[in-house]
């Protein structure tokens, strides 16, 4: 599988979790990439998912989203 294909697959998983209302609660970066923990509170109570992201582009992608979410929440100075 090409590098871009690997990325698209990981990106799709990230997008799908965000789409379903999950938010990132914890990130653990290690030698194998990043373990990103997602949580949401739904009808079934607290739900948790963990993505083990390996590609550089996916690790960049999810952190970009967090960065810009945070930036948009920060009131302009």
């Amino acid at each position, binding site marked *: 599988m*090409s*590098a*871009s294909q690997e990325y698209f697959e990981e990106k799709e998983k990230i997008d799908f979790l965000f789409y379903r209302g999950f938010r*990132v*609660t*914890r*990130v*653990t*970066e290690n030698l194998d990439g990043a373990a990103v923990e997602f949580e949401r509170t739904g009808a079934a109570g607290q739900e948790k998912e963990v993505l083990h992201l390996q590609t550089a582009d996916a690790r*960049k*992608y999810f*952190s*970009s*989203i*967090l*960065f*810009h979410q*945070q930036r948009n929440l920060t009131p302009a100075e």
Partner: protein
Amino acid sequence: MADLRINLAGIESPNPYWLASAPPTNSGYQVQRAFEAGWGGAVWKTLGEPIINTTARFAAVGFNGKKVAGFNNIELITDRPLEVNLKEIYETKKRFPNHAIIASLMVEPNREKWHEIVKRVEDVGVDGLELNFGCPHGMAERGMGAASGQQPDLVEAQTMWVKEAAKTPVIVKLTPNITDITVTARAAVQGGADAISMINTINSLAGVDIDTWNTIPHVAGKGAHGGYCGPAVKPIALNMVAECARNPHINVPISGIGGISAWRDAVEFMLMGAGGVQVCTAAMHHGFSIVEDMIDGLSNYLDEKGISSVQEIIGKSVERYSDWGNLDLNYRIVARINNDVCINCNKCHIACEDTSHQCIDMLTDPNGQKYLEVREDDCVGCNLCSIVCPEDGAIDMIELPQEQPPMTWNERQAVLAGYKDNEREAAK
């Protein structure tokens, strides 16, 4: 025509091109001929207690048909008595009052010795002083040059001693043979330097003769490390100038030296913060007349850009030089091959396939013609294919629209820190 005059820490010269302290500035005869040819200033061959040189002294490192990609020397400072040099400096200054003459100096790290030489050279009317804390060979074995230039406390103390006696601007010439040149640059500023210059030569051994097993060059079968300069060292020098220029604690003018052989090099050094440049190897390779092209080229460049004085370009690229952590991770470029220019040499394909990201596909068009195409999704924009491509215009590096707004590594790490509480707790 643009104004090429510069004023570096109070030293004025008709253009930014000075000859660096080295064989081209060994005597009044040479410096006067250089000024006639068009050089704006000259840093006289380093003065101090006259030395004894060896033969041979120089070696060149060629590359790909270029005879002097790098230049290596084991020459020391002047071998002529101070009195003789001073007389020639006086005569040269009298003939060329508007050109800059800077006396390069090197004595032992001793206050009285510095005071004595400063007084004697200033008496003949030099426009400034340059302290040679950079010669990496021979003199360093005697505790001078790079040996004292590698110790920040000695750089500071010696600069201070010179400043106690000097009436003209003092430039401290730094050695590149150190891990972080901003440390010694700061020491020079602390000592009161009016300007700094860099780089002197880099420790080197030009080569080994594989037939005789002698070093290159050798002196009766023995060699010693020399100093490396010329085009090969330009990127190292340019980075050192830029690092000093962007350091808020180093707020003195910089004279840029190292591998400058054409007007474009001079422009690059000035954009990166140099207030003027010095040249040695290129003058040794091609003679004094190269300055004509350097003046014309610079002048045309400024006119084309509508810039009236060369001093306006000083430091204009400095704010664009930063730390890796401040670069935008979401910026994307990819390679694109122009098949109408490509000569199908396959070099880019081999480079990408063997040593980059295997994303240049070899395809066949309906007429059976082979052509290459970049799979842009897999291209990491490393530039390698365009570097190895022999045809101008066959590969363009294209900017893609950003999928995500800018984010630097430092910004990323700052935001992720908020999601890593468990790691922080574990580290406690």
